[in-house]
């Protein structure tokens, strides 16, 4: 119950902030602002005072070289600094007079809100897993698991027995570290992303795109002749159908990881949007009449809490689906080999 409420105050603060500028609450803009990446960690606003944590800006430009400074130098996008300016949370190069300079290319490698939170999640994940591994090493295999081991061990055995083994057969051991890393990397970022006020890391397309690229690379490394044979010369179909099938099959190689990317991105983003929409309803009603806003608050919170529980479920399900589908695609990549061995046996 506390979480959506906290979210609400956050939202309210933001709404106040927005009203201070435009006197009108724009739900769509506010929601998109919340799920988008940012160069500062904005906690809440009291009156005219913003409580934010500035994050380091790292910009590389072929013409100007590398620049590193705090995002507080931009002063909420009002001021240009070292020839760069923040425009709609996007860093653009400006000339001496403060106008946008299109000729200078700026590559933004800043530690944004998402990057910062992801790095925290990574540290947390490494700390959790290595401390558990230490316990395993110290106790050996004759001691029953205890404490947090009991929470992690079933997940690991689940990934091994229900994701890796059925899809990858006898080769599963080779892929276990990758599958486990993907699963826990997505899971911990999903869960931390659910904390109110936190960044929407797994709902960012760059994050899911990177994971999709890695799974694409892993799938490509796992392919064998049989796999390519099926793509460039699908067996058992007439010649003309082959001509149609070859581009389709070729496209499917890229569509598979792309589907992984969009699925995770869309699921996490949609969940955040739904929760934020329910919270925004309070302010939309509040703008019509203060009483309506207060009156709708319980309904809004009830719906938010409901979606929140679903989101917790989705956090696990999406991590599982991403890992499972990656395992399925890897399994398909060396499927033929498996069949050959089955015949040989």
């Amino acid at each position: 119950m506390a979480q959506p409420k906290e979210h609400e105050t956050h939202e309210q603060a933001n709404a106040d902030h927005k009203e201070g500028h435009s006197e009108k609450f724009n739900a769509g803009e506010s929601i998109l602002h919340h799920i988008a990446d940012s160069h500062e960690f904005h906690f809440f606003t009291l009156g005219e005072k913003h409580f934010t944590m500035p994050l380091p800006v790292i910009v590389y430009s072929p013409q100007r070289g590398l620049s590193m400074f705090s995002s507080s130098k931009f002063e909420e996008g009002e001021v240009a600094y070292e020839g760069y300016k923040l425009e709609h949370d996007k860093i653009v190069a400006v000339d001496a007079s403060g106008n946008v300079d299109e000729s200078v290319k700026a590559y933004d490698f800043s530690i944004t809100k998402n990057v910062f939170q992801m790095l925290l999640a990574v540290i947390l994940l490494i700390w959790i897993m290595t401390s558990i591994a230490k316990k395993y090493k110290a106790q050996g295999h004759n001691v029953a698991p205890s404490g947090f081991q009991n929470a992690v061990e079933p997940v690991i055995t689940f990934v091994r027995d229900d994701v890796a083994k059925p899809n990858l057969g006898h080769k599963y051991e080779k892929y276990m570290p990758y599958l486990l890393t993907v699963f826990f990397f997505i899971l911990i970022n999903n869960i931390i992303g659910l904390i109110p006020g936190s960044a929407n890391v797994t709902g960012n397309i760059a994050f899911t795109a990177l994971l999709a690229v890695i799974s694409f690379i892993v799938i490509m490394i796992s392919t064998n002749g049989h796999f390519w044979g099926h793509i460039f010369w699908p067996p058992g179909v007439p010649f003309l159908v082959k001509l149609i099938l070859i581009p389709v099959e070729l496209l499917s190689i890229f569509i598979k990881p792309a589907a992984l990317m969009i699925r995770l991105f869309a699921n996490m983003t949609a969940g955040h949007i739904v929760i934020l929409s329910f919270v925004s309803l309070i302010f939309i009603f509040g703008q019509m009449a203060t009483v309506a806003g207060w009156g709708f608050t319980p309904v809004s919170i009830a719906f938010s809490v409901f979606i929140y529980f679903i989101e917790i479920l989705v956090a696990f399900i999406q991590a599982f689906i991403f890992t499972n589908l990656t395992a399925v695609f890897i399994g398909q990549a060396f499927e033929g080999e498996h069949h050959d061995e089955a015949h040989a046996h």
Partner: protein
Amino acid sequence: MQLLMPALGFFFWTLVAFIIVFLILKKFAWKPILTTLSAREKNIADSIATAERVKNEMAQMKSENEALMAQAREERSALLKEAREAKDRIVHEAKEQAKAEAAKIVADAQAVINQQKMATLVELKNQVGVLVLDVAEKVLRKELGNKPEQEQYIQQLANDIKLN
């Protein structure tokens, strides 16, 4: 749509973070955890197999024990039976022997008795013969003296003999 455009910076940092996580966890987490898990699973499977084997061995030993017990019982009853038979035989033999011994003693005694009786009879016959000769001598001597007296004397002797 800014939402659908992957940001280069975040993409880059995710790549760095993922590679770091993958390498660290692969070496320091997944490897020890997975080896321990498989070792434990193997250990459990082995333990179950051992327990099964021990159970089978126990069952086998139990049946062997029962067979041994049955055999021992059989042997015991056989021994008892044998002993009873031996006792009966010994008693019987002793009885037979005693009977034979007794019969022999009785036979010996009878033989001795007969012998002595015969001896006594011989002596008696000799005695009678002597007496008869004595009497005949005396009679002959009297006959030569006095006839009536002889007769009287014979009579008297005869009476004496009767009295004897």
